[in-house]
């Protein structure tokens, strides 16, 4: 009897040991796109009217930094324009002293560990450069930044809104899916709107 009891307990122990509290990793949605936004809660977006958008997407890999081109990059920039204008902002040339500057940086195969202060250090070449420090990532990440150029000085500028879209441009998502996520970044920030004349 003791043997049977021991066998039962051992069997139970084996099953117990084989079970994990976490669901299978295949169920854990690691490759799905996520949209993360943060806006400056102290910013008054009605005080801004005009913006300029960097004409290309900066691509940062763990090897080099290049300019990203192609239909997906164009579609992302066009979607940003569409959303900004739908919220009352007016696009102007960089030389027209816009209130806001937008740039998109795409990190591929790098793990981005961002730590930043609410100011930055220098211009590149016409646009403020966001001081993101990073290490290797396994998935892609696009960072859309909305920078306050009205208050920018030669040594600092404030980020009023940024959006991270993770998994973006990895090749496993269509352009339509990606632009929908760009749109989602604006949808989930209803505060980003202006009525300024």
């Amino acid at each position, binding site marked *: *009897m003791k043997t049977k009891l021991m066998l039962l307990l051992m069997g139970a122990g084996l099953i117990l040991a084989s079970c994990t509290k976490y669901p299978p990793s295949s169920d854990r*949605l690691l490759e799905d*796109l996520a*949209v993360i936004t*943060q806006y400056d809660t102290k910013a008054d977006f009605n005080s801004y009217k005009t913006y300029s958008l960097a004409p290309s997407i900066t691509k940062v890999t763990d090897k080099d930094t290049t300019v990203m081109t192609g239909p997906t990059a164009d579609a992302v920039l066009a979607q940003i324009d569409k959303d900004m204008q739908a919220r009352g902002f007016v696009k102007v040339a960089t030389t027209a002293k816009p209130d806001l500057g937008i740039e998109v940086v795409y990190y591929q195969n790098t793990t981005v560990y961002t730590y930043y202060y609410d100011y930055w250090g220098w211009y590149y070449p016409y646009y403020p450069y966001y001081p993101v420090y990073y290490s290797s990532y396994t998935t892609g990440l696009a960072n859309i930044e909305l920078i306050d150029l009205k208050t920018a000085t030669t040594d600092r500028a404030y980020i009023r809104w940024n959006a991270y879209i993770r998994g973006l441009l990895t090749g496993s998502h269509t352009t339509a899916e990606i632009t929908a996520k760009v749109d989602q970044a604006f949808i989930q920030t209803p505060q980003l709107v202006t009525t300024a004349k």
Partner: protein
Amino acid sequence: MRKIFFILSILVLSAVSLQAQNEPASLGFTPSSYYTFSWNTTFTMGDFNKWVGNASPAGFDLGGRYFINGGLAAGFNISWQRVSQIYQNETYTIPDKGIAITADNYRFTWMVPFQGVIAYHFMQDKMVSPYLGLGIGGDYMEHHLLIQEYDIYKTRWDFSLTPEVGALIKFGNFSSWGGLVAFNYKWTTNKIELYQTTSKNLQMLNLKVGLVLIVR
């Protein structure tokens, strides 16, 4: 899922009842104790459904009962259970920080209940022995919200009460082995405060099907 649960309940109770009528034979011995090992399916109820609404077959239960006076038995139960659900494209906000996150997310609760149990067996020495029981104890629970590789979680201990109805079905007059079918309702003081959801006094139904080792 609820319908399946109730249909199963009726079928099992009917089968137990029929077997009790057709096989009134007694065991060839008087049990002094028994140990159970059962597969456990959980059906979340009430506030718990706001967190995870799916039934989950991911669970098992280990128990022991010792007859102390006639059909009256006392013992313990230790379990392992997980309930989980995927939510598509949901937005989570942290208004005071201006943060919003939209993503598919995976919510799950992992729990390890441990209870002292008292049960009364109506036909202790029969081939089919229905019982009523009450478990009193606690749970260790972890409530997890998974978004991509991020794991946001909280752990909580609680107090719990579990009334249970079930039956032992012996495999033979002199066999030390039998089957177990039981249902219980569990009420806990546990709560979830994650993902803009507050669920208090978590409740669930459990269906247990398993094996019994009967000790003379």
